[in-house]
């Protein structure tokens, strides 16, 4: 169960591109000599994640997983139930996608290893930016949902 969850966490939302949705299946289907190394890849990613990720980042990851879930459910419902109020679907789905990437950005900016990439962004600044951008996002979504 766990490796799958992680694979999903790292991947973006299921529907940002059809490309991405297919990645997990690629991992399992691949039959050639790579099968062995794929196992290793997944295992080492899992170990790396468990050992290297601080508690706070894991919390962010849980939120991202939840967003993926919410977006997936909405998308599924759109496929099954039709997309009649299309703006409602778009704003709901856009909210999850947007929140996902904003959270991912927050995760990137607050990770220690990326510190060199963001010399001008402190942890607090990253969080404040996150709040402002989320507010903008929600304003647009609520306006668009009618």
């Amino acid at each position, binding site marked *: 169960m766990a490796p799958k969850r992680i694979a999903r966490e790292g991947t*973006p939302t299921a529907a940002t591109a*059809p490309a*991405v949705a297919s990645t997990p299946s690629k991992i399992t289907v691949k039959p050639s000599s790579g099968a062995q190394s794929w196992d290793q890849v997944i295992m080492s990613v899992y170990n790396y994640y468990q050992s290297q990720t601080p508690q706070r980042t894991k919390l962010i990851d849980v939120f991202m997983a939840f967003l993926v879930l919410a977006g997936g459910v909405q998308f599924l419902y759109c496929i099954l139930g039709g997309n009649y109020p299309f703006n409602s679907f778009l704003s709901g789905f856009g909210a999850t996608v947007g929140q996902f990437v904003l959270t*991912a950005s927050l995760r990137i900016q607050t990770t220690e290893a990326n510190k060199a990439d*963001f010399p001008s962004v402190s942890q607090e600044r990253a969080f404040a930016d996150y709040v402002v951008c989320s507010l903008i996002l929600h304003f*647009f979504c609520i306006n668009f949902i009618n």
Partner: protein
Amino acid sequence: MSAQSLEHLSGGSAKNSRTLLRVVILGFIAAAAVASRLFSVIRFESIIHEFDPWFNYRATKYLVANGFYKFWDWFDDRTWHPLGRVTGGTLYPGLMVTSGVIYHALRALALPIDIRNICVLLAPAFSGLTAIATYLLTNEMTTSPSAGLLAAAFMGIAPGYISRSVAGSYDNEAIAIFLLVFTFYLWVKALKLGSMLYGGLCALFYGYMVASWGGYAFITCMLPLHSLVLVCMGRYSTRLYVSYTTWYALGTLASMQIPFVGFLPIKTSEHMPALGMFGFLQLLAFIDYVRGAVSGRQFQTFLYTIVAAGFGVGLGGVVFLTYMGYIAPWGGRFYSLWDTGYAKIHIPIIASVSEHQPTAWPAFFFDLNMLIWLFPAGVYLCFQELRDEHVFIIIYALLGSYFAGVMVRLMLTLTPVVCVTAAIACSQILDTYLQRESPNAADFENQETDGADAAAATAKKAAKSGGLRATRSPYVGIYSLLTKGLVVGSMCVYLLLFVYHCTWVTSNAYSSPSVVLASRMPDGSQHIIDDYREAYQWLRQNTHEDAKIMSWWDYGYQIGGMADRPTLVDNNTWNNTHIATVGKAMASREEVSYPIMRQHEVEYVLVVFGGLLGYSGDDINKFLWMVRIAEGIWPDEVQERSFFTARGEYRVDHEATDAMKNSLMYKMSYYNYSSLFPAGKAADRVRQARLPDVGPTLDSMEEAFTSENWIIRIYKVKDLDNLGRDHGSAAAFDRGQKKKKPTKKRARRVLRLE
């Protein structure tokens, strides 16, 4: 007071005075940008120019008078007569809302200014802001202190931008270029810092840009292209992820708020690069994360599979969705940028606009003068340093110059990047020749002897001891005062010439309101030809409120704005068939066009005729486009071929074809025209043709108004004949053209049915 604090003080004050100087210079540049756009207001008067701005002005007046909510769902029943236009959903509201906000803000400050003056002066005001935005953008590119100011100065007065932003040209481009440059600035800033806040701001300004101009598609394609190029260059960074995804997520939602755009960002091909890049970046971020987690060998297999599969499936998905019709293919206007022959063949209405023609070489020099040859040098300098933001400028330069080459109108989007790169090149020259300190003689000698080529050094030394006095000094090359003075002096001369050129071009070419035609009397004094407003005023005062006016679509907005009468078609060419209907009515015989006009409740028909004055933009010269557009819909009723003589000439004199002579447009243009001249002298000054002495007769309409110089002619459509005859026979009866010998034979009649 210690020496150190003194030094600190002086350093601080130097910095302060530099800042002060910058602010003052930027203020002057903004003032110059505003001032150079006021030629037309000072020479003529403060009115709206051209055609499109009249609609924007009318919409702004509606917004100011009725409030925002009514403006948002404004159904305009005074255009496209039988159909009407859902204006709130078919315009970009940014321009109107901006001037509405300014109007109310000024009122709140107790400065009640007429909305017309705000509309007229909006473009100059925003050009000042554009100069400042260019300053900010250029400062992101280079560390040189002068480049930003130079770019701002270039942008402030470059004719390529002035042409669309003189006072009175109240068009979308007036604010769009500012938003374009500022959005690019925020994007570069966001990418540099990797800041979510700047990404969010970039999205907000992108949303504003979407609300103002259809050219926002340029940004939508530029940013993903830049990101893609960065990724392909191996410059993927977490900063790129943060800035791009923040921009895309917020910006797309922001753009969908505009009713005119609606769902387009996910349904049309123009927006697919942005979406594809968004997906691709997610993939890359994931890969980037995994790279930290696994060893190199494992990573190789992982990378290749994922990247290839992800990219392939994504591209295939987009192609498949487009093929299946879920995603709309390129719009005609956009597509004609790639396939330059497309519009001429398939959509004559796009090709008929003069701004959509390819640009000639002189136009580049005319609009940009010396910037056009500094432009490649600046791009080259960007290549030399090649940071992320320089890649942006290079891509922008490539795309911008391609589009400007395809379409005259897109010179506008090229101008900012030309200004930025030219400023980089220019400041590079100036910095090199102004700031380079002369090295110490000792250092110089050391360098010489340290050099690998010792033989050359000794040779030089020998020359130094015995050669010319000039070569004895080590301060040669760019260190000598003479060289510096020469280069800087010639650069200054070029800059001064640039200012002269810009002022001259602005004054002579771009500052004429097309509503008023100016000409010179023999003694040099100015003579104003004001036929347009004369005729529109006549319509406004002498026709009833709901009289429908039929004219070619060029004049639709002006009639709506100045005459305030309903029109059939206007410059918003959203319904091609309706325009073709008008084209058919103009190009057909009276018997054919009268029913068409009756069906559309037309009461007045307006034509523009420049034959008396030599005004070449008249309706006879546009007539072939009417025929072509009508032929596209009714190929067997209107044929372009029948308007040419047997030798393939387009003539209006006695050799004109029957179809030409009998067309409504010909008759309306030349009706009674020959009575102006003595017999045999009737001539058309535009076509340089001698006209037949007997002019055409009009049966189904009567002349209602002809302006002073015969530029505008207005005809009233006659009512049905009281006795039920058709207009041809009624008019013939009135003229007394009955046969001398009444025929005794009984006419053939048909059975009366009722």
